[in-house]
């Protein structure tokens, strides 16, 4: 594995598996092209070009994932590529597929230009005209007047997606850190780009950035300690050391490695870094603020995709690197899972803002997914994969609905304004109710199938306690999902209530896809369960 130390002085040309890495390469490549477009294309062509590039790139990348999977890379032909840095295996490809689909529909949300009233005759999107301009200042007014739009969002989003694609595939700690940063940095920026309520948006960005950087510092220190423990950054290498076979790695290292304190502390810190990304208690506190402040399309993308990518990385870390020390970290992760489920559900009860509500709900869901992760079995992996796929579409759909309910000040996210929405636009309220029911895990929605998969895997692995807590948390959570439905359908509409904007076909089709996915994964989940089931084995 460690070719460098073996062949000192002779630099071999690295073997690079272009095909196996093609999905990520396509996305990152498209992002680079996007940057070039920003640099060279005239302003008025940028929007169209960026959208086309993003859509094409994501479609191609998805085709590449499908091709790789069809080629057997997901099962028999699973391999480690990029000189041991990247895994091309079932979980990686499955999650990459999900991520690319999420990215694909997110592009539609990002590109939506019919929601905001036209500024000076030009259709605009949900993003700031010029991010650098002071809110309310002359520069901003000028930028608005000139019809500026932030078309950088597309390359930023593609970069973030590129990082996300690497994240669950990362097979050594170096790539794990790089992928984390590649996915995080563009997201920090995207958070700051809201057209309305810019102060909140900027605050979200600052909080996300500082806390995210803080978390990655912990992660990095953890990586350093793991390196100190094992003398290698590669997952397989560390796993070998943990399982007590260091000489197989490098006889020369035997003297300097194997300090368990490094392993335990380092492992805890790396896990903590990932738990931050998934938004688990007690590393969750950024979630509500960032979800609320960020532009809603970004929130949707982030909520769906980050969770998928981060859980992917967490799964691989726990299943490939740390299974030998499960007795050490299992109890504390139980605690985290239970705390996440309960705290998320309980705090959400009293929320008054739709986006914050969904944020707390995402915390509770992080707990549910952790229950599946803790199953530590093949079923556990595939159930988590399925849950992530189901959850990401529901989440995206829910935030897409939020973008549509608007009043004079932009999105009307305060719950009191949603009163009676079901009477004004039953269809939209119905779709949102569907998403809420899926969150609540009502049968015949994808949320139920996911919950059942995760809980049954956990129960099968003997974690009945987690299942029972999960069930209790679900009952509590049902309370606030139901509250929103009550508000939409049974309350009298307010006089000055928000109206539902008729979006372009992009958002409509995106909503349709999300709703269809919610129902299909709920009624006929078998195909996708099979897919996730076949993708349940990590390559080493």
């Amino acid at each position: 594995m460690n070719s460098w130390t073996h062949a000192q002085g002779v630099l071999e040309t690295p073997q690079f598996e272009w095909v196996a890495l093609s999905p990520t390469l396509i996305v990152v490549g498209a992002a680079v092209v996007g940057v070039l477009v920003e640099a060279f294309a005239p302003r008025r062509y940028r929007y169209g070009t960026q959208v086309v590039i993003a859509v094409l790139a994501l479609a191609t990348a998805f085709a590449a994932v499908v091709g790789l999977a069809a080629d057997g890379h997901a099962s028999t032909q699973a391999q480690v590529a990029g000189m041991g840095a990247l895994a091309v295996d079932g979980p990686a490809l499955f999650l990459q597929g999900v991520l690319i689909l999420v990215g694909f529909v997110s592009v539609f949300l990002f590109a939506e230009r019919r929601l905001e009233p036209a500024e000076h005759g030009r259709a605009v999107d949900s993003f700031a005209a010029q991010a650098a301009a002071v809110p309310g200042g002359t520069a901003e007014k000028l930028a608005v007047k000139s019809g500026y739009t932030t078309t950088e969002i597309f390359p930023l989003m593609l970069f973030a997606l590129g990082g996300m694609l690497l994240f669950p595939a990362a097979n050594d700690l170096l790539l794990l850190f790089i992928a984390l940063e590649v996915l995080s940095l563009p997201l920090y920026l995207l958070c700051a780009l809201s057209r309305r309520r810019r102060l909140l948006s900027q605050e979200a960005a600052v909080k996300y950035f500082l806390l995210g950087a803080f978390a990655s510092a912990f992660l990095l220190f953890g990586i350093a300690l793991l390196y100190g423990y094992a003398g290698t950054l590669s997952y397989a290498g560390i796993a070998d050391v943990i399982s007590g076979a260091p000489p197989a790695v490098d006889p020369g290292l035997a003297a300097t490695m194997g300090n368990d304190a490094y392993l335990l502390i380092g492992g805890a810190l790396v896990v903590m870094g990932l738990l931050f990304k998934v938004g688990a208690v007690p590393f969750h506190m950024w979630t509500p603020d960032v979800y609320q402040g960020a532009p809603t399309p970004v929130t949707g993308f982030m909520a769906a995709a980050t969770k998928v990518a981060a859980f992917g990385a967490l799964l691989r870390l726990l299943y490939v690197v740390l299974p030998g020390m499960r007795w050490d970290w299992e109890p504390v992760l139980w605690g985290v899972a239970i705390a996440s489920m309960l705290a998320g559900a309980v705090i959400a009860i009293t929320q008054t803002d739709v986006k914050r509500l969904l944020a707390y709900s995402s915390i509770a869901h992080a707990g549910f997914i952790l229950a599946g992760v803790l199953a530590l079995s093949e079923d556990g992996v595939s159930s988590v994969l399925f849950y992530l796929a189901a959850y990401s579409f529901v989440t995206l759909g829910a935030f897409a609905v939020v973008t549509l309910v608007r009043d004079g000040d932009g999105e009307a996210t305060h719950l009191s304004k949603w009163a009676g929405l079901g009477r004004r636009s039953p269809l939209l309220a119905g779709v949102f109710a569907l998403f809420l029911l899926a969150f609540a895990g009502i049968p015949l929605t994808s949320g139920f199938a996911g919950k059942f998969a995760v809980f049954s895997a956990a129960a099968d692995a003997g974690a009945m306690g987690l299942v029972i807590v999960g069930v209790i948390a679900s009952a509590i959570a049902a309370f606030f999902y139901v509250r929103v439905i009550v508000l939409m359908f049974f309350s009298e509409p307010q006089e000055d209530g928000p109206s539902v904007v008729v979006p372009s076909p992009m958002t409509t089709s995106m909503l349709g896809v999300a709703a269809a996915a919610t129902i299909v994964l709920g009624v006929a989940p078998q195909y996708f369960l099979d897919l996730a089931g076949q993708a349940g084995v990590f390559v080493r």
Partner: protein
Amino acid sequence: MESLIGLLVAAPLLGAALLLVGGRRLDRFGHWLATGLAALSFALAVVLFVDMLGRDGGDRALSQHLYSWVPVSGFQADIAFQLDQLSMTFVLLITSVGTLIHLYSVGYMEHDVRRRRFFAYLNLFLAAMLILVLADNYLLLYVGWEGVGLASFLLIGFWQHKPSAATAAKKAFVVNRVGDVGLAIAIFLMFSTFGTFAFSPVLSTAEQASEGTLTAIGLMLLLAACGKSAQVPLQSWLGDAMEGPTPVSALIHAATMVTAGVYLVVRSGAVFDGAPAAQTVVVVVGAVTLLFGAIVGCAKDDIKKALAGSTMSQIGYMMLAAGLGPIGYVFAIMHLVTHGFFKAGLFLGAGSVMHGMNDEVDMRRYGGLRKYMPVTFVTFGLGYLAIIGFPYLSGFFSKDEIIYAAFGKGGAEGWILGGVTLLGAALTAYYMTRIMLMTFFGEKRWVKDAEGNDPHPHESPLSMTVPMIVLAVGSVGAGFVFNLNHSFVDWLSPVVATADGNSPVSHGMVSVLATVLMLVGVGAAWFQYGRRPIPEVAPTGVWITRAARRDLLQDDFNHAAFVTPGSYLTRGLVYVDHKLVDGVVNGTAAGFGGLSGRLRKVQNGFARSYAASMFGGAAILIAVTLLMRAV
């Protein structure tokens, strides 16, 4: 011949259904349809009776199996009828008196717009009563039992716009339901003991069952009988039931339904024979009710309520006789039949009086009516003579037999029971004479009715007087016919156990004693009510009178013992349900809400405190991980 039994029931049932479903178009002739169907039923009964007489005593019983009603594994309930001599007796009584009262009602209810319904209910009652006495198993009997209860409920509350009538109807049904529970439990006991509840297997196997079981069954049957027959302690409904139209009181609350309890005890004789303790309780209930009813009857000024007290008391006689076992069964039934005639006649007479007096019921506002209503006076008078046991009229024979049988119980019990029955005879004479004197003799004490009309007492129309005359004939002659050659005893003895008692007093002596006591009662009543004018406002009276006017405080007792605690319990439970049971639920929800409100304060908006939480979390993560390794 068997197939006629079903028709017997079907005719009035059909009438009820037609009249209820048919609607207004039947208003014009519905009452005649009902009366005709009742008469048809009577005619069928006569045909069956004649047929039965044509066979030997031993194989007179007929049975008809219609269909299997509730077939469940191990549980067989059939719709099947059994017509033996006992049932036949009842069928004849029910259909004959029933038909007469239908006829009477044609006149009595003439001006009521809801007359069609009234006849529907009467037909329904006939059908249910016939089911009751014809059933060949206890479950079907139960159907009839509750069916007559329903009809009684509907008819007592027929004038629903009067709150008192509606209340009385409800009370009757509910008190009866308490008794019905007894019958239900008795059936459960039979089923778990014998695996069946059809008459013949149960009764023929009864002697093999343990005495404890039989006592339990007997007591439960008695509870049922108490409810239906207004025996202490479930007697309180009968007085209120007089809110119903008078023909109803005559048919249901005098002649037929209220005697169903006696039928039940006699029918279940085999059970009671094996349970002396239960028999004793039956006797005690009968004796107590006998006196209870008589005392109440002495104090009431409402003519119908006074007659109701009398009914209670007379059924007490029957119950007492039934409780005596084989020495009394037959006489219980005999008194039941004679009582059916004369009490129905008396009630119809009372109805006729009320009819003439603008529905006035207070006897203190009657007086001197014999001149205005001669037919009523004569028929009522014959009924009066029959009930007080005037020699050679119906009551004389049947009551004397019961008194004789009571002595026949032997020992101290015999003396006590004999004494009670004799005392009852005197009281009967007293209260009946009182009614007679207050109604038909003395000064006119009439008052205007609520609308200010003066009463114009007049003789009732033919449709009302004819039934009264027929019943008077029955009152006079039935006892004599029954006693001729022991005909009634011989008739029933194949199906009802009979035995001779060992009375310390001779039969003749009993007759003499009873007659003397009767005269004493009559004399006392004359002394009090015949000699001097009757005050229009009742005098306060002694404590016993005051108590008797309030039905010996039965309602006060029920209120104190059941109604008031019950309503407190109910209100308390409503509170508990709302505050406690529901409170826990709502409290849980509120608790989570409060917890949520407190927990969300942690999210204080400061990035540094978020960082602190992460730092702390990391510390815990590391600490627990290290700790797990250390442990």
